[in-house]
């Protein structure tokens, strides 16, 4: 067999391996989605969306969990995004290389790997008890903000790193200050990556259960939370609660709630894609 032929076969084999890997991911996702949709799609209706939890599966709804999840989502974003992006900018643009800097860097990277329940314990002591927030939406959002901060910081830094050096130098050469350079050149150029990082981390946050249960999120909330100091529940807790019930009807409710939660995630990812494309078109270098 000639060298050319062998290389050709290796090439083809790798291509098929790559196709198999992609198909594996897509097919298992489709199987999962198909299964869930089959079980739950018929249960989604106005009654399900607007009802409070109930002991009777056919009367139960997700309004309090749905609104709780939206509250958590919005508040977490408001808290985590400015802090995370700010810290990322500082670490990438302002901080000089030093021992302290290395120490920070290692810590932030490690934080991204800490199990989420540890954040829950921290949130319980610091936010719920020390700062007296109790099991409120605010305490939950603060806890989840800590959880996703490392991801946002790393995403911000990586995106800033990817901006070509020439852009920075040209800006300085034209007499722009550091802040002007960051605000008018670097951030717009890096925004695609930053927004993607933010959205992915928020998508993780709305799927979390353990830290919120520790902080004091409830399961039965017979009212729609109207302020950040209200007690709350979120959709993953409601889903988990339904799945572990013996009655068959709750399994259907859980499937329906999973579809709604997936829809929220899809919408968020859609927004991320839209903005990334929009900004990438604007930025030309």
């Amino acid at each position, binding site marked *: 067999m000639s060298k050319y032929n062998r290389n050709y076969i290796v090439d083809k084999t790798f291509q098929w391996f790559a196709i198999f890997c992609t198909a594996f991911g897509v097919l298992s996702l489709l199987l999962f989605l198909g299964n869930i949709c089959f079980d739950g799609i018929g249960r989604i209706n106005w009654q399900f969306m607007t009802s409070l939890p109930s002991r009777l599966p056919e009367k139960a709804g997700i309004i309090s969990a749905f609104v709780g999840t939206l509250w958590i989502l919005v508040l977490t974003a408001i808290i985590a995004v400015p802090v995370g992006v700010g810290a990322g900018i500082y670490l990438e643009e302002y901080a000089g290389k030093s021992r302290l800097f290395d120490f920070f860097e290692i810590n932030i990277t490690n934080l991204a790997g800490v199990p989420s329940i540890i954040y829950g314990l921290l949130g319980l002591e610091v936010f719920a008890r020390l700062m007296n927030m109790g099991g409120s939406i605010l305490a939950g959002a603060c806890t989840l903000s800590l959880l996703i901060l490392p991801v946002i910081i790393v995403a911000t830094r990586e995106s800033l790193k990817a901006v070509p050096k020439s852009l920075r130098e040209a800006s300085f050469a034209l007499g722009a200050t550091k802040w002007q350079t960051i605000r008018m050149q670097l951030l717009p150029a890096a925004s695609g990556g930053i927004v993607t990082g933010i959205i992915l981390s928020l998508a993780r946050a709305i799927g979390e259960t353990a830290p919120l*249960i520790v902080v004091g999120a409830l*399961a039965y909330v017979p009212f729609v939370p109207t302020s950040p100091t209200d007690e709350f529940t979120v959709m993953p807790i409601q889903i988990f609660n339904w799945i572990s019930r013996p009655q068959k009807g709750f*399994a259907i409710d859980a499937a329906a709630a999973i579809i709604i939660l997936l829809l929220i995630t899809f919408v968020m990812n859609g927004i991320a894609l839209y903005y990334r494309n929009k900004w990438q078109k604007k930025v030309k270098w």
Partner: protein
Amino acid sequence: MKKIVYVLLAAGFLAACGGSHKEEASSEKLTGAISIDGSSTVYPLTEAVAEEFKATAPEVRVTVGLSGTGGGFKKFGRGEIDINDASRTIKKAEDSTCKTAGIDFCELKVAFDGLAVVVSPENTWCADITVAELKMIWEPAAQGKIMRWNQIRKEWPNEEIHLFGPGVESGTYDYFTEAVVGKSHSSRGDYTASEDDNVLVQGIRNDKNALGFFGLAYFTENQDKLKLVAVNNGNGAVLPTEQTVKDKTYAPLSRPLFIYVSKKAAERKEVVEFVKFYLANTKTLTKDVGYIAMTDQEIEAEVAKFKAFIGETK
């Protein structure tokens, strides 16, 4: 929105006024908030009661969490919640925490739950089992040793035995080990554990050689997929049914479920009404959620206990 603010204000006002305004409050509509946490086993029942209570007292905000019996008692001992759901009685350590914090409480039985021992419908040999045999299978010393059915009873086949049970964090596991092995939280480790009892149902139904245990409600909902095993405590084999759990002939695998009410919370009108409502309706609601109701006399005894606790005379 505005309404809820008013309710909150009213709740704060009532809480601030404390006992002195009790008389006036009784003639008015009930308001306020009741926070409940604790066992995920008791949760469905408390949820059902809270749901029905909302119909009679729509302005009282009852919230229920599921931190587990132990997690709930931690909060209870700090005075963070009014009522704790418990699938076992309070432990000594938890009791002394409450005492140190000055939290006086009342323990009330609200329902019974049976633990079902089940096998797959394909299992033709195992119809009953003695408590001693269960102990032999589940005790820590059995790990790696009791691996085949015929090791338990000679006439059973020479097949591997596959064990299924709830995870070690659950109250169900605590209760089973306490009742069967004799020591809470002590069993062999080489069994398939899941926090989700529905997973256990799936595992057992498809495995001829499986043996497992979980709450009776999970069997009731899956009668066509599982076979119930009668448990023999020396007085003949007994199947867990509503009757045998209620009259305690199904022993030792039936357990009472509790709520713990703190004295401080019981000074509030809405909490008193809620607890009374709980006891008055537990009989019908228990059936809805798959547990076994107490008898009328037992309920009356709990009501009397609660009345004595709050200093109310008949």
